[in-house]
């Protein structure tokens, strides 16, 4: 079976349009990031979080009233996977699990017909939250540097730069989409948690994977076809690797879609971020990474 015949698409010719497309999506994402921001999970914010499973469908209004009476009117209440499972979160911390216990008591007294089971309770101090945020930023930046270094050594510095810029593109785009869609799609919890950070790092890893495969082919082809221009070589290489790129991304996408729909609430946000990331990663390794290398090479060469 073969999904792709030998293709001969002039990818590089369309790079101008693609720059515009990418910039537009990123711009929308950035606007959303500035206006709406991202929703930091409890890991990064600190506070108390409870996941409770109720015996019957829980009424949000009643819950909110119960919490308001106990002095937790500022808490967030949202569904966790289904109608009976509720996530309650407040930024209040208190000594130990006092806050969690108060919440449980309040619900117990205000909703006597409901019985519930606590599935999870977390309390994160503000200091930890801050540190985790810092560590996450370090991790992303450090991995970008590591990748820049490795690609620059194995190929050329410009290639390393192209790869890293493509990665910035992926991360920004995914972050923008997460900011845009958070709270819009039901049952999809798109908070920035530690798992989402792991997802971002995986996106970086997989996207650079794709990019490197293309670069590898470009390097190989530039040795064989010395007479061709860099643009032609890139187009040829992209076409040759297209089948592989799509098949690989496709299989990973299958895995992620399964995780997204069947993996349960806990991994859903993670799988969603990765799904977006894989799509942008595949696209960026075709258009962004190579295109940047091409444009910068052309610009560097011109003055000579």
């Amino acid at each position, binding site marked *: 079976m073969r999904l792709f015949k030998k293709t001969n698409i002039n990818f590089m010719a369309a790079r101008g349009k693609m720059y515009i497309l990418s910039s537009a999506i990123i711009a929308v994402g950035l606007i959303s990031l500035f206006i709406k921001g991202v929703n930091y999970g409890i890991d990064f914010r600190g506070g108390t979080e409870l996941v409770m499973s109720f015996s019957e469908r829980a009424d949000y209004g009643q819950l909110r009233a119960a919490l308001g009476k106990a002095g937790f009117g500022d808490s967030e209440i949202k569904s966790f996977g289904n109608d009976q499972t509720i996530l309650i979160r407040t930024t209040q911390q208190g000594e*130990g699990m006092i806050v969690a216990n108060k919440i449980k008591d309040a619900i117990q007294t205000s909703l006597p017909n409901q019985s519930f089971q606590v599935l999870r309770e977390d309390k994160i101090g503000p*200091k930890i939250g801050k540190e985790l945020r810092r560590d996450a930023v370090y*991790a992303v930046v450090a991995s970008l540097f590591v990748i820049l270094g490795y690609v620059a050594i194995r190929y050329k510095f410009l290639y390393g730069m192209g790869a890293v810029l493509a990665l910035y593109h992926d991360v920004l785009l995914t972050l923008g989409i997460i900011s845009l869609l958070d709270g819009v799609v039901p049952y999809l919890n798109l908070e920035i948690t530690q798992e989402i950070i*792991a997802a971002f790092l995986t996106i970086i*890893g997989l996207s650079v*994977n794709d990019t490197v495969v293309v670069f590898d082919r470009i390097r190989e082809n530039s040795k064989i076809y010395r007479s061709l221009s860099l643009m032609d070589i890139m187009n040829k290489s992209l076409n040759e*690797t297209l*089948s*592989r790129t799509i098949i690989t991304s496709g*299989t990973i996408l299958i895995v992620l879609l399964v995780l997204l729909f069947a993996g349960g609430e806990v991994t859903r946000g993670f799988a969603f971020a990765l799904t977006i990331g894989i799509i942008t990663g595949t696209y960026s390794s075709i258009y962004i990474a190579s295109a940047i290398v091409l444009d910068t090479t052309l610009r560097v060469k011109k003055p000579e």
Partner: protein
Amino acid sequence: MILAAVVVSLIFLYPTFQDYQYRKKLVSLSGPDSISYLDQHQDDILSAKLKRIKLGLDLQGGMRVVLEVDVIKLLEDIAKNKDDNFGAIIKEVRDQATNNDESVIPIFGRKFQERGIRMSRYYGNIRDVDAAILSQLDGETAKAVDRAIEIVRNRVDQYRVSEPNIQKQGTRRIIVELPGVKDESEVRSLLQGTAKLEFRLLRDAAISYKVMQSIDDYLSGKVAADTSSSAKTAKKEEKPKDALEELLGNKKPSNADTTNEAKFTREHPFFANVTPDQRNTGEGFVLDNNRDRVIRLLERPDVQRLLPADFEFQWSAKTTPTPDGKKFYHLYAVKRTPELTGGVVVEARATVDQGTNRPIVNMEMNSEGAREWARITGANVNKRIAISLDNAVFSAPTVINKIVGGHSQITGMESPNEARLLEIVLKAGALPAPVSIIEQRSVGPSLGEDSIRSGLNSTVLAFLLTILFMAVYYHSAGAIADVALLFNVLFILGVMAGFSATLTLPGIAGVVLTLGIAVDANVLINERVREELAGGKTLRAAIDAGYARAFTAIVDSNVTTFLTGVVLYQFGTGPIQGFALTLMIGIAASMFTAIIITRVIFNIMMSKGLNPNFG
């Protein structure tokens, strides 16, 4: 090599499988059957449990607590001549330390410099320079953290949580993971209370032996203990028979069993579990496997009534190994009221005795303590005093002579480590290292179950879909890649079991992801072979060229992903590390399976004249 890898993986995975089997068996058996099964296979079950792939707290439920040692409080406690200036500095340091994560000591030093105050006013010798004092304080705080860890470990050991995980994070944090524990208030007091260091006199060996004898008699039914009261409160749980049941469980030998051992157990049930020391020290030895049952027995009210006034059993904190590889706890008979409590200890230091070259611990007491200590030691020469922390005995040295002036030397340690531990224990009473809980998470087991189920289901489903796709798309070459994929999963799990790594939910995600990456390597190869075939090469030449050319791309792409894994592992915490670990293991395994195993299979097929089909 492939065979070796498979065999090694299987060996590592066997305990996991065994553990699963045992648990299935235990679930299928009911009540007494399951207990007797547990007893019969205790050692095997335990060893399987130790070597299996462990499940993270998110998968099995439990509590995770992060403690922070209050270093500033410690600095305040050990300062002398404290005045207003000092108080102001402490306050500023505290404010600044909560706002950023810089280590406390440098901030502390800087504050002194800003104010132009010499640190020697409050610490060390008057002639000491600031740098020397700072480095000394640094050592002091590091020790305080070690002490806090030891205290926490001691308590968790006493609490008998299965497979607790206690580790140091950074310079002053302690992570405590307690699987299966739900009672959060109990755990909080367990972790946060002040350590209780006590010196208690051991009861005479003769009395200790007599008490053990009376318990033994009671259990074997030779005497009815305290008939009057047991007649009045003849509750069900207070009969010797039930006490015996508690101690022996289903290990109770049947009357038909006529071996000497069975006879002894029947006649002396207590001594069958608690061996009195032959050297007449009054101690009892209990094998670690039997400890839980003996503890339960001793806690029973009817057994407690057998103990004389001012008599209590205390356990040793650590086990002692025997030459044949068994481990036992010491059971000490001590007085109920402590002679002294740890507040009197001002300094303890583990060193090596210059004369004998043996490890020793020097202990200093304050003047009040020294006075008491002189009286106690003077009245109890040649008797033993147990040093216990939170009711666990760490050492029970014999008083050699009256100690005046508060300076004592404790000898008889087996190793420098033992001496170091005793130093920590003694100091725990003197300089409590206050800890506060800064993070606490608990996961109910039902969420754990749910996440395991959906995690596993989705992994299996994703795996099947991928396998199906590969076989359809690349025909027999795809099927070969699938075989490699199976090996890949086997290796990942094998390596994880080998490292006794912990499988968490993000870890499962990592496995799923590596499957994708592993497929990618084969897609790269197969696409390349197809190209070479289309270019007119023979099958064998195309395969050779395909592997050779795809190799650099696979290596480069995998190395970069692997490097991100390394970075993640380095900077990440908890769940992210779990993910990074499986990712790294997975990539290493997939390089091996996707490149080498498939190649070997192709070669074997070709040599047999079977031509693989690349679709």
